[in-house]
């Protein structure tokens, strides 16, 4: 009852409904995570990892295989819940909860797969309808990457699949990109274009967390987290 006197009736309902339909808020974005811990059974994969990144910058996460880079990115994306620690992501004044964060991020990972029975364009069209995104934006990215859109996903090479992941991740114009080995399997031209896309994303006020086994040369890197 106390709540209803503080907020007009229906305000909370309106706010909840609008969460799903309003476009991303403008203003600087920031991602902060502190003392993030995650175990799988007895195996402690993340033991108190902290870091932050702001609009226009990238955080580079390096470490050998099994050091927890992918687990950290999954926690940041909202695909895994940390056992302890805090993850805070703000776009402008708005702090995004895990459900919203999950739908807003652009995520690339070697584990990310698409429907082999569908063509590249059908895959993007399906996810564009789910994410209320513009298919044209995804197709534009794929055109820059030179990926044929009429080919079935099952018939793509590993480099082509990585290009499709980039198109999928950028289609809904996310502010936050979480990139796990983003240049894996790409040829020289593919890596050059994806680096340009990442550069344009950061220059446009986006932010990124980039995980890779080895240190990468990326412009605008504001921090480096070594999990080794």
């Amino acid at each position: 009852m106390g709540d209803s006197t503080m907020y007009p009736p229906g305000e909370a309902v309106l706010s909840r409904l609008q969460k799903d339909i309003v476009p991303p808020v403008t203003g600087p974005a920031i991602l902060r995570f502190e003392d993030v811990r995650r175990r799988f059974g007895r195996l402690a994969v993340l033991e108190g990892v902290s870091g932050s990144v702001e609009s226009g910058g990238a955080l580079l996460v390096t470490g050998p295989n099994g050091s927890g880079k992918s687990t950290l990115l999954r926690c940041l994306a909202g695909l895994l819940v940390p056992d302890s620690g805090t993850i805070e992501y703000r776009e402008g004044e708005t702090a995004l909860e895990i459900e919203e964060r999950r739908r807003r991020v652009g995520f690339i990972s070697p584990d990310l797969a698409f429907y082999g029975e569908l063509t590249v364009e059908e895959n993007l069209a399906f996810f564009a309808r789910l994410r209320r995104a513009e298919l044209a934006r995804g197709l534009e990215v794929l055109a820059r990457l030179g990926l044929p859109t009429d080919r079935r996903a099952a018939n793509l090479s590993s480099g082509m699949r990585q290009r499709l992941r980039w198109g999928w991740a950028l289609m809904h114009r996310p502010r936050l990109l979480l990139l796990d080995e983003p240049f894996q399997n790409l040829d020289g031209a593919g890596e050059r274009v994806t680096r340009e896309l990442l550069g344009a994303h950061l220059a446009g006020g986006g932010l990124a967390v980039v995980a890779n086994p080895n240190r990468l040369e990326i412009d605008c890197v504001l921090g480096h987290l070594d999990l080794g």
Partner: protein
Amino acid sequence: MSSGIWTSARTWAGTWAAEAAAVFAKEWRCELRTRYALSTLGLFAFTTLVVVSVSLGPLGVMKSQGSAVLPVLFWVILLFSATAGLPRSFVQEEESQTAIALRLSATPSALFCGKLAYGLTVLLALEIMITPIYLGMMSLAVRSPGLLAVALAAGGYGLAAGSTLVAAIIAQAKGKGTLFAVMAFPVLLPLLLLAIELTRNALGGEPAGVALSQLLLYDASVTIAGLMLFPAVWNP
């Protein structure tokens, strides 16, 4: 304020329905290109139908016992056909690693309803295909065809909803086959008992009785439970 809420609610409902429709269309598009569920369900149903019909036939079961025994066999055929094909819809997402993209993109309740609608249409198609064959091969007379249609629709919906819910729960587990059987048993048992009773009533020309209202209640309960449980099961 109220018009703002109403507009937002309508927009949200529209986008939610569009998401569910997208999932439904995707399922069918993939299915029509692989024909995995259709061929599995169809072959399983046809094989068991032929075995039951040839073994018992119109003379194999005494006419007085036929309307009591044959509905049981009919729903057993439908149950095993459904469990052979429907759980794949979620298991496939995990095994082919498309679940990650789906988790990051879809509203869980819309995803559940899209998958449920797909399972329901597959099952209804199966019912439409095998029911006339079964009735013909067993020489079963239906005194209340309308009630039989209701029993098939309500029973089929419950079977699709229960299977979709259990499939979603087991999709991330190991030993999926065994787990599905173990978990589906208590969920689907009440449904089968009610659907069998309703089918018997339809064959015998008796009124629907309480079985129909209980079956509809079961369908509503499983749907609500699915919508409430699925987000917790699907997301971490």
